[in-house]
């Protein structure tokens, strides 16, 4: 039976690798390899992943002030450190909203008159964590989508869901970082030799069948880049083999594709690889050989560009002060990326972020990459310990987001190609899911602290219609945790619907902000762009 199958009809499929190959067989995915993004869209994607399942409601709300007393625990802990949790009065509007969307809200834990204060006033000790968003004037460029169904409450599956839009043990569509890198490749390949970068070997984005140029390049700390990205004589095995000459570069089809500076050995290997073209009867084998050819061409480009020297000569931090300007007295001063809370009973030192944040800044400032995935190395949010777990998640969700805000502040103050780095970069902050919510009234609260499949994602920077809250949490029929409220969605077929958002919609929204049309990529099971996130 031959199916008269169409790409649109396949939206209903929840497919795996074999079916993905089947779709390739029908030529349904060919278009996406060549898709070029819309003009005017941001040209970089930065995804920041908080692992373990965080508690976004403790920073961004997602509920009404009237609901706060029932779902945010009572203030507590002033005697041993900063006070955890917040009241209805603390949930303040910090964005303009607009377009029929609600304003962005944040739970203010700092003293508005003295943001760095850690003084106790009326039994409440102020917590500065979170203020960096205001310090760097980021609320207007930030929109948070709440109530996203990840489709799972398992860590590995939730991570896959967050990255590609389909929950499962393995990827069923390419990670969004790879989709974006692939889309931007044609227009940036001459000056961005590292299209897709991962700064931590954990949870590398998976490209599936996308071209090798969209696969993540693992870029570790600056001091260990040489062994993978340099051909200088410091490494003895390059001596006598690293002389480069300008040659005509050929693509897989043998057509001249500009010039390249190659070593003799690289040229010999590329010629040998291309010499195998057409020898196999299998298009799959031909594709495999082409991937090796294109991949080795890209390796040559990276080595010729002397990326290591470029990165060494590009500054990381230029504008941030050694400690946050509002930091006040010790022990809050923990370096540009550090924070502490309580009586220093827990803290995250700046060193936890130094390598990855420094490298991310250098990569973006040197304009070497289109897509960066940063698996945040600091705190594992999978607390699982009832009331103490909620307290730790409150403090570390705010701490992690505060450090991120400082990082975004540095981006905002940096100009690349005549534009603020933040304005030209879509930043996505996410986790695999959230936690089951505490709930109760007065002091009588229950502190379930388990995995919960509904979560929130923060969009910031370029292409984002900032200052908005999209969606929210439906606490009716509350059981362990809330579900997502309906949001406006532009479905893949173009029609507009209203329904709770899913992880696939987040991936589609990211791709849409990055300038891709909804038909330029494919996510099994259906997807749409969440309305109100993208700046029109």
């Amino acid at each position, binding site marked *: *039976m031959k*199916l*008269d*199958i169409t790409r649109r*009809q*396949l*939206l*209903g*499929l*929840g*497919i795996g690798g074999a079916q993905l*190959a*089947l779709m390739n*067989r029908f030529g349904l995915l060919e278009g996406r390899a060549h898709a070029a993004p819309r003009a005017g869209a941001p040209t970089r994607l930065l995804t920041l992943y908080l692992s373990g399942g965080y508690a976004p409601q403790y920073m961004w709300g997602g509920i009404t002030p009237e609901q706060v007393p029932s779902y945010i625990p009572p203030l507590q802990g002033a005697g041993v450190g900063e006070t955890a949790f917040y009241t209805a009065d603390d949930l303040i509007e910090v964005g303009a909203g607009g377009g029929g969307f609600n304003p962005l809200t944040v739970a203010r834990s700092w003293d508005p008159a003295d943001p760095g204060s850690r003084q106790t006033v009326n039994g409440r000790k102020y917590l500065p964590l979170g203020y960096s968003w205001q310090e760097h004037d980021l609320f207007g460029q930030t929109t948070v989508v709440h109530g996203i169904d990840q489709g*799972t409450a398992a860590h*590995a599956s939730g991570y896959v869901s967050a990255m590609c839009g389909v929950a499962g043990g393995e990827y069923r569509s390419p990670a969004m970082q790879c989709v974006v890198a692939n889309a931007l490749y044609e227009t940036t390949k001459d000056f961005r030799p*590292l299209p*897709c970068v991962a700064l931590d*070997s*954990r949870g*590398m984005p998976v*490209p599936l069948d996308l071209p*090798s140029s969209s*696969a*993540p*390049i*693992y870029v570790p700390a600056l001091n*260990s880049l040489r*062994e*993978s990205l340099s051909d200088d004589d410091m*490494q*003895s*095995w*390059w*001596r*006598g*083999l690293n002389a480069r000459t300008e040659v005509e570069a050929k693509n897989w089809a043998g057509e001249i594709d500009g010039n390249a500076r190659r070593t*003799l*050995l690289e040229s*010999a*290997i590329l*010629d*040998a690889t291309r010499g*195998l073209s057409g020898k196999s*009867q*299998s*298009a*799959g*084998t031909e*594709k*495999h050989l082409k991937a*090796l050819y294109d*991949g*080795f061409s*890209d*390796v040559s480009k*990276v*080595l010729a560009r002397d990326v290591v020297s470029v990165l060494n000569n590009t500054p990381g931090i230029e504008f941030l002060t050694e400690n946050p300007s509002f930091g006040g007295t010790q022990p809050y001063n923990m370096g540009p990326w550090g924070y502490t809370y309580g009586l220093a009973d827990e803290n995250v030192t700046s060193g936890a972020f130094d390598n990855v944040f420094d490298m991310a800044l250098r990569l973006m400032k040197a304009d070497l990459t289109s897509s960066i995935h940063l698996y945040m190395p600091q705190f594992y949010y999978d607390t699982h310990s009832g009331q103490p777990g909620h307290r730790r998640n409150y403090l570390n969700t705010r701490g992690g987001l505060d450090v991120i805000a400082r990082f975004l502040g540095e981006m905002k103050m940096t100009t690349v190609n005549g534009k603020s780095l933040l304005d030209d970069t879509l930043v996505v902050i996410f986790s695999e899911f959230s936690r089951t919510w505490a709930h109760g009234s007065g002091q009588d609260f229950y502190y379930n602290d388990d995995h919960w499949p509904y979560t929130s994602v923060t969009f910031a920077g370029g292409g984002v219609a900032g200052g908005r809250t999209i969606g929210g949490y439906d606490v009716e029929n509350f059981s362990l945790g809330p579900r997502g409220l309906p949001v406006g969605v532009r479905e893949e077929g173009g029609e507009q619907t209203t329904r709770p958002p*899913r992880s696939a919609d987040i991936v589609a929204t990211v791709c849409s902000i990055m300038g891709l049309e909804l038909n330029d990529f494919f996510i099994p*099971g259906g997807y749409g762009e969440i309305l109100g996130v993208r700046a029109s």
Partner: protein
Amino acid sequence: MRNTPLIVAFLALTACGADAENTTETQSQSVECAKTESDFIRLKLAPNCVGCHGEGTSAPYFASAESFEGLIVQNPRFVVPGDPDNSEFVRLLEGNGTGAFTQMPTAGEPYAQLPADQQGISVQEVRQWITGLSVGSRDTTPWRDAPTTRRLGADEFRDSLMALLGLTYEDDFFQSYSSNFESQTVVLRGPLALRATDDAPGLHYVDQRSSVSRRWAALGGADWLNRKPRSYDISPSFLQTVTQVSQAWCELAVNKADNTALFRDVSPAQGSDVAAAEIKTNIAYLHLRFLAMPATPAEVDAIFDDVFVAHESAGPKTAWVAVCSYFVRHPLALSL
């Protein structure tokens, strides 16, 4: 042989397409037409199934005709053409499933025991449909374009390279020394050493631990303790690491004394001015050894000229590092 009553019913359902031309737009949109006989079955079962298996669910078997065809009808785990008794799909409807779920729907009575007015179609009719399916109804032609090759995994790359280059952990990558705390400590120190992140302990390689793990990850190596399977992606990180390792390990192998794995016909110190013929013979030997294919004289000449001689100004050993690296990075050596 197709079941006649089913075909008649199927044709009646598909007739809605023609009828739709004479109806208002609203009416025509409310009618979903069966596209195939299998789709007829789907539509009849859908009211009981689509709630859990519709679009947007994690197992959207009933989301569309194509979903049903691809995930149920064409899936031998569920449907065995011509053999309803051995079709799990039927077993599930009858409450005799053999997998994680023993019945559908999962709650209450299995489908076969639902009141007749709650069944869109009887299980007997489903059985007839499967009986009428023939193996030939599936597209079983081999897919000519299916990928038949893959690149080496990290462990395969490491193990094959070590063997091809005549290197061993003991001789070339481990170093032992005395320490204050232990009488003898073994440390992994070789250039760009490769070792699985979750290899068994018993070896101290703390000096390089982070770089060894990083290299292993770049090659797509498995890290089972952290639930990370091996990857066969032809990623930039894989090829960057292969590029560096090929030259580092070839340098090690070329400089290893009496390394007959690489040098069978010539000494690595001999240049083309005195041993051109022997060098070519050795290149032919390496071609067969690394690529599992004999080289033609023209291929040997090309490698001799373009790789060996082209790098010989830096010395014959450097030229051999180039030749060796050429073979290590050759697609035939990197692929299975």
